[in-house]
């Protein structure tokens, strides 16, 4: 997964790296007590309950098989793990990286347990033509997406082995370029109605449910791109200004700061953190004390 790092470093403003030491975490007191468990903890001895994900039954008791928070829905008990791979659900927005071009499909890394699949038939062809995919299309596949490309997509369906099938059949999905990918734990991304944001600070944000977060420049007064060659041109010739780079870098560090504090990621928290960070230079945002300071507002939400 070398690709990620490359992109991250691209936007680092002047290459200076701040190495913070691991520090003692603050103990956060929660108002409503969560039922936190570690593997092997007994959740309940009541037999009336049904076991869900992250649990197992031993004798009469239901025990946790992962570390996380116990959730109850009616009679169902499951444990939502703190750190886990992404488990896809239909309708989720994800950011993924093409890792293989195969027979009428792309393999996509979406940080789930198995590689996800993007079928040739579930992408929008350039120009928005709707037709059956022919053999020529199959040969052209690499010109649409090649290995290493980043894409945004939506989960179309979940196979029985829990691998995901994606689709990009909307203009807002597709190849991503000129920006920065940040990876966080999937659990930190809060599920909202919309995961595409154009932030007022001058950057666009895609909060993939799989913990991959894309920060890019604002789409410049977008006319719908209809031509493949046009798109290609745009990709290479579009120059991101220095100011945009700085905004992106700042946003990236804000997202990482929030993730570091295990705070939920959605547009509001990110914007609050961004606003709080204005007083610091972008590179200072990785310092632990600055992180504490700039995330304090988001923590109160």
């Amino acid at each position, binding site marked *: 997964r070398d690709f990620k790092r490359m992109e991250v470093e691209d936007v680092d403003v002047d290459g200076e790296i701040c190495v913070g030491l691991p520090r003692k975490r603050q103990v956060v007191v929660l108002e409503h007590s969560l039922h936190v468990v570690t593997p092997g903890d007994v959740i309940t001895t009541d037999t009336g309950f049904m076991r869900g994900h992250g649990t197992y039954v031993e004798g009469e008791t239901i025990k946790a098989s992962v570390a996380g928070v116990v959730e109850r*829905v009616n009679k169902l008990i499951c444990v939502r793990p703190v750190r886990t791979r992404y488990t896809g659900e239909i309708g989720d927005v994800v950011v993924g990286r093409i890792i293989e071009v195969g027979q009428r499909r792309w393999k996509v890394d979406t940080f789930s347990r198995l590689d996800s699949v993007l079928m040739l038939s579930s992408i929008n062809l350039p120009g928005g033509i709707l037709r059956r995919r022919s053999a020529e299309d199959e040969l052209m596949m690499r010109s649409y997406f090649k290995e290493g490309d980043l894409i945004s997509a939506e989960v179309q369906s979940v196979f029985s082995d829990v691998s995901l099938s994606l689709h990009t059949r909307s203009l807002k999905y597709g190849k991503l370029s000129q920006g920065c990918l940040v990876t966080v734990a999937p659990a930190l991304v809060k599920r909202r109605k919309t995961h595409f944001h154009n932030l007022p600070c001058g950057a666009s944000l895609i909060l993939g449910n799989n913990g991959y977060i894309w920060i890019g420049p604002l789409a410049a007064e977008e006319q719908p791109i209809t031509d493949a060659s046009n798109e290609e041109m745009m990709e290479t010739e579009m120059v991101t200004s220095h100011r945009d780079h700085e905004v992106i870098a700042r946003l990236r560090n804000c997202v990482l700061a929030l993730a570091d504090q295990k705070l939920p990621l959605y547009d509001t928290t990110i914007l609050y953190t961004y606003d709080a960070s204005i007083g610091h230079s972008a590179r200072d945002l990785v310092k632990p004390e600055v992180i504490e300071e700039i995330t304090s507002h988001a923590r109160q939400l």
Partner: protein
Amino acid sequence: MPTDSFLLEGWAAVGDSLVVCSLLVCCRYQAAVDAKKSRESKGAASFGTKGPRQGGHFKQDRNVWLSLIGKLRKDDRLPVVAFTLSRKRCDENASGLTTIDMTTTTQKSEITVFFNKSVARLKGTDKELPQVRKLKELLVRGIGVHHSGILPIMKEVIEMLFQRGLVKLLFATETFAMGVNMPARTVVFDSIRKHDGSALRNLLPGEYIQMAGRAGRRGLDTTGTVILLCKGDVPETSELHQMMLGRPTKLESKFRLTYSMILNLLRVEQLRVEDMMKRSFAELDLQRDAQQAASQRQELEQKIRDFQESVFPMCDDIEKYYQVASELNDLKHSLRLKIMNSANAAKVLSTGRIVVINNKEHKNALAVVLQLSTSRGRLASMSETSKTYSVLVLCEGKPNTSTSVERTTSGKSEAVPSTPAVLTGRTPLFHPEGPSGHMVVDVKPIEISVISCHSLRVNATHIIDDYRKRQQPRFRDDLPGREASIATQELLRLVEANPDGLEAVDPVKELNIRDIDFVEKFRRTQFLEQSLDTFQCVHSPHFIEAFEQTRTKQKMLESLNRLKFLLSDESLQLLPEYRDRVQVLKRLGFVDANTNVQLKGRVACEINNHELLVTELVFENILSHMHPTEIVALLSCFVFQQKHTSEPNLTDTLEKGKRLVIDLASRLAGVQMECGLQISVEEFVGELHFGLVEAVYEWARGMPFAEITNLTDVQEGIIVRCIQRLDEVCRDVRNAARLVGDPVLYEKMDQGSSLIKRDIVFAASLYTQ
């Protein structure tokens, strides 16, 4: 293919006419009725019985069929499809025809060979099922039966034999007409009435044409024949005309909002539920006019922007005044409606009551009620206008001239009146300038603006008769009768005594209208009337012009708002229901407060019918404890649809499970009712039918099908279809179990599914071989 239609009455076909030519049908129809009558009178003579014969007498039925088939055979009009619109009658008719044999020996052997080959794929005792044996015996003689109660594999055998021309007479229900390419030379209607689940009704034109259209095979016949059996009475010509040539049923949208659709749309970002509703056929009209409305809106907005407003002195609060005035006007209108419709008002408005009339011709004129007449004219459909009062109105001495003047001035009767005096009704009463006259007119209740406390003693009939007499040209110049002139004088006296209006009856105290809404409105009216005088603008010399201007502007704003509403999502018909349903989903935890789909919601997406109930069943952990056989038996209540069955004999666990399911269903119905949906508990629970629970339970435990049929009175084909659909439910629940991460339930559903998938129920189709 042209079709001949016949009405068959009794023994003989008495008509032949083209469907297209309804005239012919009529005259043949007459012949049928005559034949019927003559026979009836004969019957009366010989047996002494009268009255219509009861249709459906078994023996008579059989004889009708026997003679009909004999005739059709002779005329070479076979094969025949006999549409019999009830499953029971299909079976009865077929089994009654024991004496008919329509096949040759070679055909017989062909049928037997084919039948045996098809049945060979069934296992063991299934080959000896009573239905299979009976059908074989019928088929060999060229008779078939086709309805949903027949085993699927038998249906396929019959369809195939029919297509090969080996079934000469097929008794079928409407389902047969819906299939493809199953034409016959002749179609017979056993009855043209069918039971559609709620009531017995005549066939709709669409249904009739679909079935009648089966007559005549392309390339084999030149015409097809349609015969309607008239076993009871000969149907009315108008009925036949309606059925054969009537307008087809209007297409209407059957778009239903279901929970599963809402959930599926909520979890994808692309499409909103509102968009989906907008694209429904039900919204077609609205969407078609959308463009027009949009341009209208633009125009109107432009107009409002361009609207020249001149400023009048002392008229700053004119807009507020307009608001109050229009509210008052609306309130008064609704109050008046209420008063006039109340029972006490009718009592008060008896002969002699003095009222104030306000309509196009008479402004604030005093009148006396003469009589109440309930008109049955075209206005009768509107309940509040169906009543009219005959009143004697005070008017100018020469009515002809005065009315014409009034007409021209009263152009804007609907508009909001301007001055406070008009609004509160404190304008002076009409006082004739010259010598006073009178008219007797009929007024609608709504035109009576004030019911006064006064009344007169009048002789209503005398006055009316007298007035009518004088309406005739030759009595025109007669003097009015004594009664009428006295009444007029009396009215005039009252006007002179109270020029500013009479004391009105208090609606709350005296008419005893105590409903809270009314009293509220009444108080509000009084309050508003008082507040009118506090406005500054009414004292302005330019008041009328300023008011006129405000009125024009407000009218435009109102229509703009209406257009905006039409163009927004708010105007969607289904929007209120959608909101209620989302509320239900929130209450039950299927979605969270931001309508993000939760785990429960995702489970419900996997389930195809009764999604709420099945999901709750899974999450309440009701199924996991049971044995797979019990689970499938219980789940059968979601797919079985027949209402009336023999009472199944349930084990304790099943009985308990059934109770739990019913409890859960009533709870869900309760939640939905609280959220405002039009659902009753009985209705919601009534959708579950437990009639086949025992049969499915035994089937899953391995009982042969032949014995299953003894457990219940449900027909074989329906049991099979129910179990087939049950497998889909099992699959849904299995997927749900996988989603929630419960391997035990998953395992059990898998087992249950494989337990019911055996033998005749899941025998492969003959068509796919």
